């Protein structure tokens, strides 16, 4: 028998922690079951390390450092950025399927729904960092600045992933079409990564591009990660990167929450 009007009105709503945790668990489950998500979290990061090392590694010469040591800190950001594009896809899918309507009918905040996705992404990104460091180590990558700096690098990469997640959720809620959201999420990361110091030193680029590459936040991020992995002064690049990330979050979080409240099915 169904109990209809049971103690429903008296029940306390789920705490923000419980609701965020529940949404996080849902998204983590999906990551282990949706084939695209599995591939993006496992095969793709390893492929990126191998492809760039062996295809570009012979052509690019960075003074005083092996290419894998130069490449790996930055390319982690590329892998995380690629993975984050699926976050926009998933949000657009949730919007199209009515899942977001369902969530909005529940006594939980929109922040919990979005933060639950960011938290799940962070767990995945931590896995991606470990996986890429492992794959890199197998072909010669080494941390040269000690375990503390290595852990800081991993934390910074995951923090960058959080920014990508918020950005892509916002894109997904704006674009509303899953395929379009995927493309919209890939463009910025591809353009910004390839015009940064992530894959090749800025000095090898034509002059006009160098100016852009130096101003590109991804260059700063790659530089900060590289300093943490290879050694050298870290305080300034890390603080600059954190400032960039905080700046983008200050815009994307309120915008995404506001879009979540008002977004309707495409």
């Amino acid at each position: 028998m169904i109990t209809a009007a049971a103690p429903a009105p008296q029940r306390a709503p789920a705490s923000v922690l419980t609701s965020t945790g529940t949404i996080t668990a849902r998204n983590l489950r999906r990551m282990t079951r949706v084939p695209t998500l599995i591939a993006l979290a496992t095969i793709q990061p390893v492929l990126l390390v191998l492809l760039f090392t062996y295809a570009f590694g012979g052509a690019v010469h960075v003074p005083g450092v092996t290419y894998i040591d130069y490449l790996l800190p930055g390319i982690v950001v590329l892998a995380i950025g690629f993975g984050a594009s699926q976050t926009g896809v998933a949000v657009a899918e949730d919007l199209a399927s009515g899942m977001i309507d369902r969530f909005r009918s529940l006594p939980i905040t929109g922040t919990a729904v979005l933060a639950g996705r960011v938290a799940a992404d962070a767990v995945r990104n931590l896995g991606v960092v470990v996986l890429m460091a492992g794959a890199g180590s197998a072909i010669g990558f080494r941390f040269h600045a000690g375990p503390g700096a290595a852990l800081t690098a991993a934390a910074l990469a995951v923090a960058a992933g959080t920014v990508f997640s918020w950005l892509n959720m916002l894109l997904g809620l704006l674009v509303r079409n899953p395929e379009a959201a995927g493309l919209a999420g890939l463009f910025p990361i591809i353009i910004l990564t390839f015009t940064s110091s992530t894959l090749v030193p800025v000095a090898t680029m034509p002059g006009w591009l160098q100016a852009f590459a130096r101003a590109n936040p991804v260059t700063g991020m790659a530089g900060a990660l590289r300093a943490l992995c290879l050694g050298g002064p870290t305080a300034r690049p890390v603080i600059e990167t954190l400032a960039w990330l905080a700046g983008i979050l200050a815009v994307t979080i309120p915008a995404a929450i506001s879009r979540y409240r008002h977004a309707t099915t495409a």
Partner: protein
Amino acid sequence: MRRLIGLSGQYAAVDPFLTGRENLVMIGRLHGLGCRAAHCRAGELLNRLGLIEAADRQARTYSGGMRRRLDVAAGLVAAPLVLFLDEPATGLDPEGRLALWQLLGELTAQGTSLLLTTQYLEEADRLATSIVVLGHGRLIASGTPSQIKARSGGDRLEVTVPPGDDPGPVARALAGLGAGPSVVDGVTGRVVVPVADGPAILPELAARLAASNLPVAEVALRRPTLEEAFLALTRQPGPGTALPEPAGSRSAGSPGGAGPAKRRSP
């Protein structure tokens, strides 16, 4: 407010990559149920909606009807005081539809209010205590099912010709007898005439049939279905303009953009 309501939209808003049970436990947790309570409630609803055997399969393996039932179950998790349903029987097979209607009947008997929109007039007739008929964005009628049926012109006279015969001549013989346009169904060989006062019309009917000398297989007098009432109300025929439709056309379905909304209160 969101603690008091349940929602089941037109499209089954369940996560296809979670199992039926995981979907319902997630909704329960988001409603503030404890872990055990959420599992209990999920099991109870899966059992009640005939999904217990598929409970631990991912929802993407479900048939359309199973997904719909899971979606309705998701709306019931919190034992809501008011349940909003948008075309709940869409895509259900007859068995599933009857089971759902029975369940909704039990819920309203226990004090849950139901607000549902439907194009299936049979559903409205069966479940609703109060109906609001909308057509082309305007309120057409509201009231109990019997009030609405009464407004569309009393009873329905049904005359069926022998199999294979054209019902057209009978329709012409009965022209002007009813209170509205008659509906001719060439496939079943049936002429349906709305009549204000059924029993009073029978002598005139007998006289006309005798005079026309047309063979008739069956004569029946009945209350109108809600669908007939709906069609009569949305078409707004003027009195005396009753013209039989061409033989062979079936009057089924509702005019574009029209849909009745209905409500049941305890």
